[in-house]
């Protein structure tokens, strides 16, 4: 059973509640597909071949480049690596490749929308625009509301790529190791639980003993 709160359930509620209006079905579908995908393969990107041997399946080369930049804008490199280094674009390509074709179409429509708006506002497509311009467009899209500058397509597309970037990043090796502090240790002598007297912790449990990893053939 699931002992902690179900992340998918949290995702569904927060997507639905977070933007005021009902979430578009395709956004929820892709977000949930990303969750499934992460649950099954976690950092699928890391299991994939190096860049030279990799080609997107669902995205065109241009679309893939856009997803690389968009995901890095959403979760950038700081003192830890960002979505680009974590190969979140590959994760998103996988999700789209395995998605309902109608949902995939909506996503690709959103990518085209981003390019068209970039041309309207900045006179260049998204990748050719300056970083400040890209950030400005994303800021408008992330408002969650239709305004004179954005519309439902842009709002929904941002929700979609953001949710997939979150899932892809935090289940990647980089996300897990660098950002979440997973040190890769798999075997533990004990689960300590609460050790804070102020929380009412009982006396420490009997001392565990070191355990050797099981040998696998």
């Amino acid at each position, binding site marked *: *059973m*699931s*002992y*902690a*709160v*179900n*992340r998918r*359930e*949290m995702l569904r509620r*927060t997507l639905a*509640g*977070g933007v005021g209006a009902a979430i578009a079905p395709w956004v929820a579908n892709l977000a949930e597909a990303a969750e*499934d*995908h992460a*649950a*099954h*393969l*976690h*950092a*699928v990107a890391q*299991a994939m071949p190096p860049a030279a041997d990799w080609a997107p399946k669902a995205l065109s080369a241009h679309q893939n480049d856009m997803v690389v930049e968009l995901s890095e*804008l*959403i*979760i*950038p490199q*700081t003192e830890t690596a*960002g979505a680009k280094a974590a190969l979140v674009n590959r994760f998103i390509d*996988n*999700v789209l*490749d*395995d*998605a*309902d074709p109608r949902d995939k179409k909506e996503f690709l429509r959103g990518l085209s929308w981003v390019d068209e708006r970039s041309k309207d506002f900045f006179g260049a497509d998204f990748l050719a625009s300056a970083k400040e311009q890209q950030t400005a467009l*994303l800021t408008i899209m*992330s408002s*969650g509301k239709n305004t004179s500058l954005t519309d439902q397509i842009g709002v929904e597309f941002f929700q979609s790529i*953001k*949710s997939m970037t*979150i899932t892809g990043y*935090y289940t990647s*090796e980089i996300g*897990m190791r660098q*950002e*979440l502090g997973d*040190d*890769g240790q*798999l*075997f*533990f002598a*004990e*689960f*300590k*639980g*609460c050790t804070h007297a102020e*929380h009412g912790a009982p006396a420490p*449990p009997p001392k*565990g003993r070191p355990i050797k*990893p099981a040998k*696998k*053939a």
Partner: protein
Amino acid sequence: MAQAIYDAIVVGSGATGGWVAKELTAAGLTVAVLEAGRKLDPAVDYSEHKRPFDMPFHGRRLARGALVAEQPVQVKCYQCDEYASHLFVKDTECPYTTPKDKPFEWIRGRHVGGKSITWGRQSYRLSDYDLKAASRDGFGEDWPLDYAELKPYYDRVDRFIGVSGAKEGLPQLPDGEFLPPMAMTCGEIRAREVLKAKFGRTLTIGRTAILTAPLQGRPACHYCGPCSRGCSTGSYYSSPHSSLPAAFATGRLTLISDAVVSHVETGDDGRCRSVAYVDRLTRAHREIPGRLVVLCASTLETTRIMLNSRSARHPNGIANSSGVLGHYLMDHVMGGGASGTLPMLEGVPDERAQRPNGIYVPRFQNIESKHPDFLRGYGFQGGASLVKWGHAFALPGFGASFKQSVRDTASWTMNFGGFGECLPRFENHVRLDETMVDAWGIPVLHIDCAFGDNERKLVKDMAVTAAEMLEAMGAENVRARAEISPPGLGIHEVGTARMGNDPKTSVVNRWQQAHDVKNLFLMDGSVYPSSGCQNPTITFMALASRACDHLALDLKRGDL
């Protein structure tokens, strides 16, 4: 060449089949266990130590594609993922039917060990509140035994498989012979205190069939986390790592895998003579003779085999003179609960060791007082853990500030999810679907089951009481949920061949021996007369031990 005649043919090698093999071989019987699936190889089939980036990438074998095509039902189980989907059946090979408006999600595993590989391991005893529930509230039938009779057998199971837990002295949830309990997290300790002080309810650490100390040659748990992908060290109870080796050690066990049982053959006297099966790989039809037959095929497969064992003596299926076989199907109802964040634990780190266990709040409704709206009750499972990034979807913005805000707002979250009792109703039933056969030519089941008014009320109450408890703890962002789950998904399906003293209203007697067929025994969940709300496996095993003891005694006396 004459075929050996086994003292007992046991159908199924899961939690109960393996256990019955151990008990009967220990009593001196020669036993053949038939298993429908293959033998697993832990080095290949278990993946609990695989790191995400160790996972091979198999193109489109993803959640929405290949998995769904072959396993549209199994994939609804929370554990049927890329790591473990091979531990669940292919629905395309093992179909069943339901009425259009009554889904039943039948989750199955066919391999040596059955669902004891993927099970949730939670192990709670029934009490007389459950076994004698009908006498207390007038609904259904009492069990033909009481807790005092069952207790020594629960003890025997505890001592052999190892159950960790804490003694609480509760009449509705009897204590066992526990290994040391696992530790609680900060939020769980707070919850325990608040529930006791404000509601008089007990919150205890999950009682789980996982070793917290070495036992029977098996090492203690090493807290890697994902038990349901198999345990290479055999540190939780599964038949291939525990009971089956004990049975093999007697020299009296024969295990036949890839044997898909279709029916039991009876002689002119109506007694079981042999078990007929289809070789899973060659489709060859075979028969294996035995002096007695014990069905441990899992609740619904056991009943399916019986319904398909038709003869002149048993025109409606073996041991079905009562007409009750297939009826009174139950599964624990889920879908009610609540979660909330615990602001008082802000900044408290979690630990890397993964505890494969949660907390349990034993049933508190209809124990000391009578609830006006519903009968019986439910227990809560859940836990408090640090949510490190699941909340990110709800956070606004993007960029470096967004990334930082995910770190800054990681929060401890407490969750309660209820498992409720399902009342036994005649109309919830299974029968053979004469229009469809499985991949081995065996008629499939038609499952006609729906939760009723009482279960719906339980789910609503789960949501209300869980939210109240969280608010009393000082939780924030409390979200209650009451979305009733379809039956089957609890994976606690029980009933359809219930036990009782009256041959007119039950299929087996109090020793789990068919009223109509003296050498046929049922030793899995099919015999439940009522469901309780506790995770049932340990009760299946305790019941089986008791039945095996009696069976061996009868054999000695020459009564079989």
